[in-house]
């Protein structure tokens, strides 16, 4: 039986087996490949999406549990006219990504944090941003979160080379 949910503002009926993790439904059934697969055990955060606004590691959430809920993926952050979300813009200004593989998850986690806290402190960032970045972009992630929330305009200058 199809699972009714909404993805990025659009209602969808999902055909997947109910025990399939949401991640694979998003990537394979819906073809939204911006959400990444890292560990599959809720440890890395690469698969982070919003379920009813909550940052959620979709690799470990059976799709049956999102029935009737609303899901946002990295593809759904832009506004309808294509304007990037302030956090995405800050990510570009601070030149955050290196390989970029973790960044969809980082951005989704950061957006949720900012929605919750307004202007997160360093301590709040440390606590909420538990996503792993193998490239070690953490300092630039912090800078971009500050910049996106107007806490440090100077942080929007291009970052030093991180390679």
């Amino acid at each position, binding site marked *: 039986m199809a699972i009714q949910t909404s993805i990025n503002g659009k209602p969808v009926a999902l055909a997947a087996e109910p025990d399939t993790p949401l991640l694979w439904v998003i990537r394979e059934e819906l073809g939204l490949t911006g959400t*990444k697969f890292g560990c599959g055990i809720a440890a890395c955060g690469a698969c982070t999406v919003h379920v009813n606004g909550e940052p959620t590691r979709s690799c470990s959430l059976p799709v049956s549990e999102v029935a009737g809920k609303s899901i946002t993926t990295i593809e759904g952050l832009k506004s309808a006219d294509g304007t990037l979300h302030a956090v995405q813009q800050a990510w570009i200004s601070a030149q955050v990504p290196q390989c970029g593989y973790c960044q969809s998850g980082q951005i989704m986690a950061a957006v949720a944090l900012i929605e919750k806290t307004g202007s997160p402190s360093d301590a709040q960032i440390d606590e909420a941003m538990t996503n792993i970045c193998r490239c070690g972009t953490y300092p630039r992630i912090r800078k971009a979160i500050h910049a996106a929330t107007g806490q440090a305009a100077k942080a929007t200058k291009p970052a030093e080379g991180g390679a």
Partner: protein
Amino acid sequence: MADNPTADMQAAAPAKRKGVKRRAFLIGGVAVVGAGLFGISIADSNAAKSAKARLESDGGHSFATWLKIGEDDSITIYSPHTDIGQGSNTGLAQMLAEELDAAWDQVRVVSAPAEPAFANVGLGRAFLADMTGQPAIINGIPQSFLSFIARQMNLQMTGGSTALRFTGRVTFQNVGAATRLALIETAATRLDVPADELTTQDSHVIHAKSGRALRYGELAAEAATLSLDNAPKLKDPSQYRIMRQSMQRLDIPAKVDGSAQYGMDFSVPDMRVATIMAAPVRGGKLTSVDTAPALAVKGVEKVIKLDDAVAVVAKGYWPAISGLRALTPQFSDGGNGGISTASIFKAQDDLIAKGEADSTAGDGDVQAGLGAKPIEATYQVPFCPDRPF
């Protein structure tokens, strides 16, 4: 490299190109290297034709494989290197755009397609023969040089800082500079002025005297039919406005909106996903596996038994991995089950004790260098793939 240039060339039978006679073509030395590394031109081989067609299929005009200029002034640069965030594609684009005098905000860089036409020594040779109109000329080129092209072109290799040092300095700067000259030449004809009265800036050829300017996009179609200069003069670094600057990386916008494509994001219609479990010990073999538990997983289509591994093929990743996890394959250890880091170190020590190990350095007089008390230390590196952090 198995080589029979003459036979290859006869098969390719390149046609003479418009504009070829205008250019002196130097065989031997740097000019040839430049030409070889320019990549394909309009050589008359099927691979080259399909490559050119592919590059131009969505509009635009191709220059020396690596560059395409659209009639809308868009500049597309094809990088043969893998940039996974180190920034080399942005650097390469800066190098080409600098010498081209391109408008930087119109520049984008994409991966060169992984198809033979973009990395094939045969095309390099066809290009040489085509430029000269003399297929036999290939015979005069040293084998070592042809191998050099082969190594450079058959592999879309990334490593050793070769992207900027070789592709950038040897190829892309020259492609940019040579294309700029072709655009100037086209503009000179169109404006009916001497080429040396023309300057270039931000993707325009400018005739200051008459206050006229032409966009690269409106010159590209005709310029692309010209033969490119093999040894164009490069800019003096004091003139740089794009190079030697920290530009925003071109790959980053696609990495903040989920549109960047990674290997796992690739898909084709009706694609299947396979997961695989290999013998846990090198040399081990698959001795038995009951395939039924995997086949019972909805979405699993096939279990494949290999000599030293078992694979599950399914409609998607989740059934494929669930099916694999449902299996309890038995593997032999190939006699290597007892190997450990300790046993490898011991085997090394035994060889050293027997005098059968290679000694890689032993020069100089330790006593004289370090005095009476030499420092002694033993370093051992465990067996590991590459160099994890």
